């Protein structure tokens, strides 16, 4: 049934490493070259280290950096998965509730959405402790949850009325309605917001670590900043970005697989 509702893809998606991969590579090489050149001309390694200097910094203590990156990656992924799961559950729960309660909670959530969660981070660290990854997972999850819940709910609600009525005439259960109509038609919005959520998770984990940690990339940033080792701060930032890219890449691959039809449709215009 799910098959029948989705339009079939108009043409197969292009192979990854031919067109797009090359473009990425060229762009990466060019921008790294510009950075290297610019940083050398600017000649203030304390403020803007060159990429080669950052690489050297990595090669000094590769194990330690990877260890820190691994800690932060765990926090990001755990927080992202937890936050996303809870956001989806909450969104489904919201549409079960009576209309006035749904309206109220939705209002509450969109209000909470406008709260800067940086402030909460310091409290979460107080609650869950500086040690371990618990407090950072919680902050990353919180960031993800609020980046997602609004859009997932919106996606679940804005299904086509005709299709809704068709399913009503089939007398489907609520679970079937969610499984066969609401989730598939919300998938494009869900994927777009999942990408936003992934970025939020990265930021959340780092913010959490900046407020108190003994390991991880955020800790590395603080630590290196105190001793004035800018190259190491940049190294931590680069690691952080790479972790975020991995997560984004994974999500993009899944998006191509599951909602490729939608991407094709929006590119037509």
């Amino acid at each position, binding site marked *: 049934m799910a098959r029948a509702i989705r339009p079939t893809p108009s043409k197969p998606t292009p192979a990854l490493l031919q067109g797009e991969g090359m473009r990425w590579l060229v762009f990466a090489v060019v921008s790294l070259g510009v950075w290297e050149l610019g940083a050398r001309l600017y000649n203030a390694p304390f403020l803007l280290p060159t990429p080669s200097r950052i690489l050297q910094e990595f090669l000094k203590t590769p194990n330690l950096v990877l260890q820190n990156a691994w800690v932060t990656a765990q926090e990001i992924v755990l927080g992202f998965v937890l936050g996303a799961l809870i956001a989806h559950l909450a969104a489904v729960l919201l549409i079960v509730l009576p209309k006035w*309660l749904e309206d109220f909670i939705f209002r509450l959530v969109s*209000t909470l959405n*406008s709260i*800067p969660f*940086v*402030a909460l981070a*310091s409290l979460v660290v107080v609650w869950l402790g500086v040690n371990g990854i618990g407090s950072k997972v919680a902050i990353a999850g919180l960031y993800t949850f609020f980046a997602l819940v609004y859009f997932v709910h919106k996606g679940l609600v804005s299904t086509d009325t005709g299709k809704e009525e068709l399913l009503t005439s089939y007398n489907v259960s609520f679970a079937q309605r969610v499984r066969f109509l609401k989730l598939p038609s919300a998938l494009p919005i869900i994927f777009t917001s999942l990408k936003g959520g992934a970025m939020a998770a990265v930021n959340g984990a780092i913010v959490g670590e900046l407020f108190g940690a003994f390991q991880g990339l955020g800790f590395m940033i603080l630590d290196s900043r105190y001793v004035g080792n800018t190259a190491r701060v940049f190294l931590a930032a680069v690691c952080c*970005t790479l972790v*975020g890219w991995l997560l984004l890449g994974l999500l993009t691959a899944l998006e191509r697989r599951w909602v490729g039809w939608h991407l094709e449709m929006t590119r037509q215009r």
Partner: protein
Amino acid sequence: MTRLRSPNLLPMLVVALVVVALYYPLMLLANVPVAQRALESGAALECKTALACASQLRSPVLPSPQQLLQGFRNLTFPLTAPTSILPNAWATAGNTLLGLLLATVVGFFFAIGIVASRAFERSLLPWVVASQTVPVIALAPMLVVVLGQYGVQGALPKAIIAAFVAFFPITIGVAKGLRSPDPLALDLMKTYNATQSQTYLKLRFPASVPYLFTAFKVAVTAALIGAIVAEISTVGFQQGLGRMLFENSRASDVVSIWVIMISSAILGILLVALVGWVERRVTPWRR
């Protein structure tokens, strides 16, 4: 943002009351174990029982309403003191709105590029997306120093950091808006032999306005977070909620952190409401 039906005031009030009523026992539940431990460790407290102590801990898990009220009073009066909330919130709001303005300019630039040229979209969009995973928080101090060397000082560095966080939702929203006109309307422009710039001015820009405001509502929050983060990491002589947060978090003044958090939440809500108000003035036909 989808328009909600007019709020059902009575149920909302009831729920709000229930929340307030639940808060007090929840606060006691959260604080009593801490108070118990403090009493057992023989700390010199004025209260006798754990239950009595729970509402006056120095670093409570949840602050009691009295403490919050007291904290608000301490941080609000005198109104214009450099350590009170009002001038700091004002400074943060200024940084945020300046950042939003910058983000709008950059966002429109990218959005037009994305819509106008496939090559631009293909080569740049992945990088725009990827740029958002760069932890600006980490690089903010260096960024401020670099900008300072070129005479960029005061609010502008913070606004730039806020803009870096906020331009992404605006880019995506405006790009979506520029693509939103009916294909028939686009074909009509073609039959009128309209130039590209005419198509943009007369059709695509007006069509993107609703999307722009939806994006603004997300972006203004992002900009506020960016501004606060920038203030945290560029502690100087300038004011801002971020600086207050940093100082009180250094002093482990938990109640003050709560007060600042609530204040920044109120600021966020006000800013979103401001965007909503402007939206209603600019697009009256959407009611």
